[in-house]
Each structure stands twice: as C-alpha cells, then as structure tokens.
C-alpha cells in the first residue's frame, strides 16, 4: 500500500474515537433531560455542571480529531 493512502485511511480510522464522545454526550444530555423532567425546579441550577460535563466529554472526541489532523498534516 502506498504511504499516502495508508495515511488517509489512518486519519479516517482515527476519527472512530469520536464514537465514544458521541455516546458520552448522549448519556449526559439524556440523563440531564430525564432529571430535568422529573424535577424541573432543580434543572436550571445544574446547567453549569451540564456544560462542564459536556466540555470534558467532548475533549475525548477532540483528541481523536486532533490525532487525525496530525496524521494528515503533520506526520
């Protein structure tokens, strides 16, 4: 296989790490919504925590994004 082709395939495969971030965000927002529907009064007070959790979860997906960028442009 040519090195260039392997690079492109590798970059594509590296983005598979985003699956985890996707599942994580789904769990996060799903559970937040469930809790918010059960107790709407407490929902607003936990929004900061929701966004913090979102930021931390998203990082894992972004790592895979950055890895694929490194493969494409830097390596």
């Amino acid at each position: 296989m040519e090195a260039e082709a392997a690079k492109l395939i590798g970059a594509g495969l590296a983005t598979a790490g985003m699956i985890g971030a996707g599942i994580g965000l789904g769990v996060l927002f799903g559970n937040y919504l469930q809790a918010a529907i059960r107790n709407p009064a407490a929902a607003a007070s936990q929004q900061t925590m929701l966004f913090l959790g979102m930021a931390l979860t998203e990082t894992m997906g972004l790592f895979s994004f950055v890895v694929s960028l490194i493969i494409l442009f830097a390596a």
Partner: protein
Amino acid sequence: MAEQPAIDPMHQFMIHKIVQGPVFQLGGLTVDMSITNSVASMLAAAVMLVVFFALTARGEVVPNRAQALVEALYNIVDRVLVTPIIGHGGRAYIPYLFTLFMVILTLNLMGVVLAVGNVAGLSLTFTVTSQLAITATLAVLTFFSVFILGFIKHGPKFLTLFAPSGMPPALLIFMVPIEMISYFVRPLTLAMRLFGNMLGGHVVMSLFGSFVVALGLVALSGGVATLAFLPSVLSFGMIVALTGLELVVAVLQAFVFTALATVYLNEVVNFGHGH
C-alpha cells in the same frame, strides 16, 4: 500533492502577511514583527474591546444598551460561575476570568459573524481561536497562573493536591503519578477544546460553502445535471443552520473555557476545604 484540490477547507486558516515588519534576531530566534491576518484580527478585537470598555466603564443607574449587555455578560461570570463554584473568596479573581471570557468571546464571535466578509474569496477576517498557538497561550497562561497562585497561597503544602486524602499509603505510589498526569494534561485539553471546536465548525461550514458553488456550477451545465440545484440549495440551507450553531458554539466555548478556569481556581482558593 500534485495538484491543488478544488475544495480546500483548510485555506481559511492560512496565515499570510499584510504588512511586512522588521525582522531581527533575538537570542538565536528569528523574530518577525510583520502584521499578519492573525495579528490584524487580534488588534481589531483589542480595539473593539477597548471601545466597548470605554462605552460601559462609567456605570449609570439607568443602563444604556451597551451597559445592559456588559452587565448581562458580567452576571454570567459572577453569578453563574464564580459565586456558585468558588464562593465569596473568588471575587478577587473575577477581573481575570471576565477578561478571559470577553477576549475569547470576542475572538470567537468575530470568526463567525465577520466570516461573511470571506464570501468572495477575500480573506478579510480570520478566526484567531482556530490557531492552536493562540489557544495554547491562553490555556498555559491560565493554568500556570493558577498553579503558581497555589504555591503563593499555600506554600509547599499545595503539593498534597496530588495525594488524595484518606488513601492507604500503599496506593499512593499509583495514585500520585495518575493525579499528576491528569493535572498537567489540563492546559493541553483546555487549548485543544477551543481549537478543535472552532476549527471543526469552520471546516464544516467551509465544506458546505464549496458544495453550494461546486454543485451550482454542475447544475448550470444543463440537461439532467440541472437536478444538482437541489443539493446546492440544501447545502445553502445547511450553511444558514450551521451559522446559527456556530454562534452558539462560540458563546458556549468562551463560557466553558472560563468555567474550567474557575473550577481550577476553586481548587486553589478552597484548598483543603473541599476534599
């Protein structure tokens, strides 16, 4: 690559010089003081922030529009972040956190709102926060100010941050390295998050933008190809929707960056109380 590809979503992140400045050597490093599009965007943001500050610095009892806006923004930092997360001891750090928030917010929004200026291929604007160098600078600055503040406030005792209390001593051999890694990876994640979000969003927008033009040109050739107008129009609709999403992301990422800085600061200010 042999030929220049027609669709090049990375082109918008290229740095090019606008005004050639003096180039000199400083301790073995070549320093180029040229005004690039990145520098120009940051200067524009700085001017905007200073003007905004000048408009709102004199607080009035009945706020005008600019003051109402800045009060809303200040409330985000004060009442949503600092007071609930740190408590009263955090009030001294609001100036830094608010500055951080405003700078990132301005730079993010400039990249989205003024992106209209790039329609005709003129690189008038530039998303500064999509450069890892800029986000890394902000992240490292924030992280190490907090880290050094910890030593100033608590002295060497601050190092017990890496040793969770109530832990059997045998486990500390494993826990301390893990805690240290997860602590020192913070500036990296802080920089990556902002960079990745801005870069990713703008690449997707640029891709849909090139679809509109490419498919529209195909459709103009007539015959069955006229059907290509449909995906072209759909892509345009996607750009409109994505612009809205990018506006949300721009504000959200500024908020998230400040929120994480507040959380890191909380460990220093309330050291020894929380855990």
